[in-house]
């Protein structure tokens, strides 16, 4: 039960939605498609499902070429960002509908519906109509419908995006459970790096219709192949600064120089871009940290954390610091950074040296 995309692309009206892509999804894996809005996550899913035909390339499913096959003839299930259920049917009938269309035995349907409802904690609501349910329950119902089909490929297109924070957390915890029981290939699209990390499995980062990297989620996070992937897989986005390596020294931007250590020891002389994640910026200096003077433009306080938007030599940076800070926009601020948290990217954007801390992990 392997799904393989071979050189698959999609062009609509002269606009390239998906650049030629090769991707192999192994049986029984959770695969996260991570990318900002309109990066091509949904387009890619529609191609996988067979809702759209690719412009070029082939789609292989369990060894068979299914490129031209209609979605009706493939065994796939899909859950959308909107809560899609049949409005005039009860939860029971909604969950049962795909199996009825497959022509299963009545007893078998009943057993599976009750099992899925139990798993999705919908048993008390089983005789209600979708509009009488909360958003979370509606989406559980849609998930249950996808689940009972026993499809080999389950596509989840930002299924939690329309839910409020609390329900999202709740339902997110259920998804790995469903996944483990099903043994199917799961494809899960999301815009949130945090969600990708929580789900684990494999991760494909998308940017403007290209898969920039595909691999185990933690390793994509720790060692992004290029600056684009690093930007996608970081929320808020990764911060960048130009660096110059010459001899034994690395010079940051226009200012400070440090001796090359674990960071940059093996680099050839030349210009690079250094990147670091917002959560690695600190307001307090610790031993061995670099200091950057900057101007504070905005602060956003989110509960126990504060986002600081900074201007450093014309570059816009974001820092994520703990605690609620008493800061004035416009004030001068020195931020600190441990050099072990710095990634080095080449002029072409490829990763030249992962951050030393990620190497150690």
């Amino acid at each position: 039960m392997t799904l393989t995309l071979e050189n698959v692309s999609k062009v609509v009206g002269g606009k390239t939605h998906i650049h030629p892509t090769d991707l192999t999804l192994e049986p029984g894996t959770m695969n996260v498609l991570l990318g900002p809005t309109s990066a091509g996550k949904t387009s890619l899913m529609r191609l996988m499902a067979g809702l759209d035909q690719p412009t070029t390339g082939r789609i292989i499913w369990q060894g068979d070429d299914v490129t031209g096959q209609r979605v009706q003839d493939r065994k796939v299930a899909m859950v959308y960002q909107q809560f899609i259920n049949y409005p005039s049917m009860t939860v029971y009938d909604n969950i049962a509908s795909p199996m009825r269309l497959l022509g299963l035995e009545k007893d078998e349907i009943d057993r599976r519906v009750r099992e899925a409802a139990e798993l999705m904690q919908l048993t008390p609501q089983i005789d209600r109509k979708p509009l009488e349910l909360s958003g979370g329950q509606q989406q559980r119902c849609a998930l249950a419908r996808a689940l009972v089909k026993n499809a080999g490929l389950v596509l989840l297109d930002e299924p939690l995006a329309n839910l409020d924070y609390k329900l999202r957390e709740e339902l997110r915890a259920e998804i790995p459970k469903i996944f483990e029981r099903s043994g199917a290939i799961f494809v899960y699209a999301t815009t949130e790096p945090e969600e990708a990390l929580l789900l684990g499995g494999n991760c494909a980062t998308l940017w403007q219709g290209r898969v920039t990297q595909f691999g185990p989620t933690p390793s994509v996070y720790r060692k992004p192949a290029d600056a684009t992937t690093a930007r996608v897989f970081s929320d808020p986005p990764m911060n960048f600064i130009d660096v110059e390596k010459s001899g034994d020294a690395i010079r940051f931007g226009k200012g400070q120089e440090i001796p090359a250590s674990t960071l940059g020891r093996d680099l050839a002389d030349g210009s690079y871009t250094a990147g670091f994640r917002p959560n690695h910026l600190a307001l307090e200096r610790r031993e061995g940290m670099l200091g950057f003077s900057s101007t504070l433009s905005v602060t956003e306080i989110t509960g126990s954390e504060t986002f600081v938007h900074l201007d450093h030599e014309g570059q816009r940076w974001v820092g994520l610091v703990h605690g609620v800070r008493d800061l004035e926009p416009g004030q001068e601020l020195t931020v600190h950074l441990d050099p072990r948290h710095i990634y080095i990217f080449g002029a072409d954007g490829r990763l030249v040296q992962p951050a030393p801390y990620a190497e150690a992990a």
Partner: protein
Amino acid sequence: MKTDNQKAWFLVLPVLILVAFSAVIPLMTVVNYSVQDTFGNNQFFWAGLAWFEDMLGSERMWNALGRQIVFSGIILAIEVPLGIFVALNMPKKGFWASFCLVLMSLPLLIPWNVVGTIWQIFGRVDIGLLGYTLDSLGIDYNYTQGFYAAWATVITMDVWHWTSLVALLAYAGLQSIPDAYYQAAKIDQASRWAVFRYIELPKMRGVLTIAILLRFMDSFKIYTEPFVLTGGGPGNATTFLSIDLVKMALGQFDLGPAAAFSLMYFLVIMVISYVFYIVMTNLDKEEGGK
């Protein structure tokens, strides 16, 4: 904190005055006529409920009411399914969608009496395209003389004039269904009929309720088009309630009975519309659709 400020009443006053002049006072004039008798010269005599009793015992009014109910029934039975069918087959977007929308709205823009005139000429056996064609095909068609020809023409005219309204409302309902529903149905391998029955129809329920209500109320009050086309004939074949009412009030100048008649007419429309609305919204709740 509770304040005792009565000045807010002044804000409501303009509406009260407007409604009084536009609805309440004219209605009360009718009520006034319905309980009095007059022989002109502005002399009025108290008649009590005599006109109402008269009208309730009048075969003429019951016949007109019967014709009216049959007419509205036929109109709804044709226009609602036809409107839905047209809406389902209209293009969803692009040039042709706009084109169809304009085309569909055209009949709605034509004034009632012009519609009547168009069909009057269209159906004439001597010069009308429809009448002449039917006649040369050997079909005995003459809407001024034949009972069925008159009914068929009045109904066709109304269907031509008003199906667009149902179609446009249904189309608006269809347009609001997210594409994901259709995709989900496709993935479920649902048939075209199942998509209509379980997705499109429940999602259109709200607009269809409005469409049915509007079409019922309008068709129940129909006056101008059949008046221009057949004048209520042949005989009394197409004399619907309002045509009869005008005959009585202005033709025979029976102001008292006509006033009683129109009050009851008004009540009937209100009661039926109310029942319609309650039934449809309850269905709505039951189905959980919107």
